[in-house]
């Protein structure tokens, strides 16, 4: 089962290695990983999506790492989750219009263009990106890169309707 974890850490050399090693040592696969500084100096946030049967022991083991400050599991209903994707889609001048039309339904932005491909950027919920891919892949994906998932805990009950990148 997939779990999203948000881990506040000290921004020091080797911290990411310690965190990721903690999972690999126990035979768990990290599905996605994103790390970046926060608004606080010397603090980074690591967002992990992991495949693991249960998280309690993993959370405790993460807490044992000296550079880890806070560990939170974000259940889907309380998580604000986003991913960024760059996708290069195969097209020729004849199909380019169709590809662009499809992409625009998802608010994907064109960031590169050639005679044989068109490259989009797209940010949104993991589901939004997944739906985009379902619709665009028939045209042929030449290359694709996705950021690791980033997430914060929801504070408001209203947030679900404010989902970014919605095609509505």
């Amino acid at each position, binding site marked *: 089962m997939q779990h999203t974890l948000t881990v506040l850490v000290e921004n020091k050399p080797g911290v990411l290695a310690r965190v990721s090693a903690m999972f690999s040592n126990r035979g768990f696969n990290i599905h996605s990983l994103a790390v970046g500084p926060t608004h606080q100096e010397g603090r980074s946030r690591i967002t992990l999506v992991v495949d693991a049967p249960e998280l309690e022991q993993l959370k405790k083991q993460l807490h044992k790492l*000296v550079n880890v400050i*806070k560990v939170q599991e974000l259940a889907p209903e309380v998580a604000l989750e986003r991913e960024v994707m760059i996708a290069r889609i195969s097209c020729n001048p004849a199909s380019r219009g169709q590809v662009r039309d499809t992409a625009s339904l998802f608010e994907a932005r064109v960031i590169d263009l050639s005679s044989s491909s068109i490259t989009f950027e797209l940010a949104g919920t993991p589901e939004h990106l997944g739906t985009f891919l379902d619709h665009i892949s028939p045209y042929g994906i030449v290359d694709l890169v996705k950021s690791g998932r980033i997430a914060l805990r929801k504070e408001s009950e209203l947030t679900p309707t404010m989902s970014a990148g919605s095609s509505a």
Partner: protein
Amino acid sequence: MTSKPFTGSDSLLRSLEHEGVEIIFGVPGGAILPAYDPLLSSPIRHVLARHEQGAGHMAEGYAQATGRVGVAMATSGPGATNLITPLQNALMDSTPLVAITGQVPTGSIGSDAFQEAYTTGLAMHCTKHSYLVANADEIPDIVHEAFHLASTGRPGPVLIDVPKDVLNSPTEWREPTLAGLPGYKPTKSGHPMQIKSAIDLIESAERPVLYVGGGVIKAGAHEELLAFAEAANAPVVTTLMARGVFPDTHRLALGMPGMHGVYTATTAIQQSDVLVSVAARFDDRVTGRVDAFAPGAQVIHIDVDPAEIGKVRKAEIPIVGDARAVLDAMNAELGKRRSPEEAPERKPWFDQLATWQEEKPLSYDQTPEGPIKAQYFIERLHSLTGGDALVAAGVGQHQMWVSQFWEFSRPRSWINSGGLGTMGFALPAAIGVKAARPDELVFALDGDGCFQMTCQEMITAATENIPVKVVVFNNGGYGMVKQWQNLFYGGRLSAVELSSDTPDYPQLAEAMGAVGMRVEHPSEVDPAIDKALSISDTPVLIEVVVDPEEMCFPMVPAGGSNDQIVMGPEDL
């Protein structure tokens, strides 16, 4: 003449002095060379080990015997890799240790320089924490943090890797702080509601057992434990790491449980209705098959490390906290409710325990004509020393026999490698113990296989004037492995026979600066011990030629249920 500038090396030594370090166990080398120069003018004693693994185990022995942080020092590359075994050993036995390693100069890191190893990477999985020092100005804080991490919460090893250029660069020393540890906040006192619930459960128990682990020694909680056991009127089992924390002669003491534990201790846990784990970790050598372990027990689990709770066995009442603080609070809670004399009598339970003790005691058979049984020697040694000695052991049959047959009466008198099971631990650990507590009688009780793994440290003992006494139980092989091959591989003995007469142990001891003796007949045992006890200025080695066919019982076969205790070969 210009005065020498104050460098990273000076700062390192000053920081170690600031932490109260008395002894460093180490081996010098190229990258750590700068740190060895200010050592000459430092009050800190350096004990020159003959191998870095030895230095590490010495530091562990020092730490286990005192409760203070042991310090080991080594150079880069092979010096650091040789420390890996003691680091993992210290991690598994929660021993406070700080290891300092030299590293190649910062600019050469990653270039496959001479004697380069990725030490902090190697140490990542066998330390509580590790540091690579980037700048000499960081040294005071890093050393202070390292000692704090090693000695607080659940103790453990911390490594500081210092590149040579950092050791050489000019710096200043300043009073260190712990500001660099924002995420490290070990819980000390247990939750008051949980403590109340625990007392409720223990008071109502018909068949309680206090399952006591090594953390009680680390927390210095032996007095609180004694008070609680007596006030609660609950029997006590002490794990391999906890031997000595509760006096074996006490009416509530059942001895060691587990794979080679006392029948009554193991079975009491199995039959308990309330199992109070105090700073123990449900190790597989204690539990046997986990799903068959203490099936009817409600578990109260006290541990300073939250990750231990529920790791192996679900706890009905988890209490995160230091054993001393929690036992103290439990004593106070119990004291509020009633006097110790009003404790539940639990007569059927104590009658049952007494019956098991009567019917299934530890036993061995020593015939007057020999061969000598190690168990007999251990009992004679205990008797002739009055038990007033600190004993270290290696790993295997002899370790189990010492744990079974030595009657322990005080904490920190039993030094062994429990979690990792490191053969070769006994001699260097005993050296560390004796260096820390020179007024005590210190024995390394070792096997021949173990002794051969680190025996060169006998030279350290002799040349550093650390007069430990070493007993080598020589059964001419790896006794425990042989036992398993005999029991589970149809007696097909593979790679377990060492020579029984090579090396010549007394001669080897003499060559390394110790007094060497050999006993082969039971009648020689007492005179040899008397002679060893009469020598106090040099190390002594007694080779005890023991029965090569003797097996260690009781035994719960690996992966078996603790309900099926094998008392001897006839039970198999």
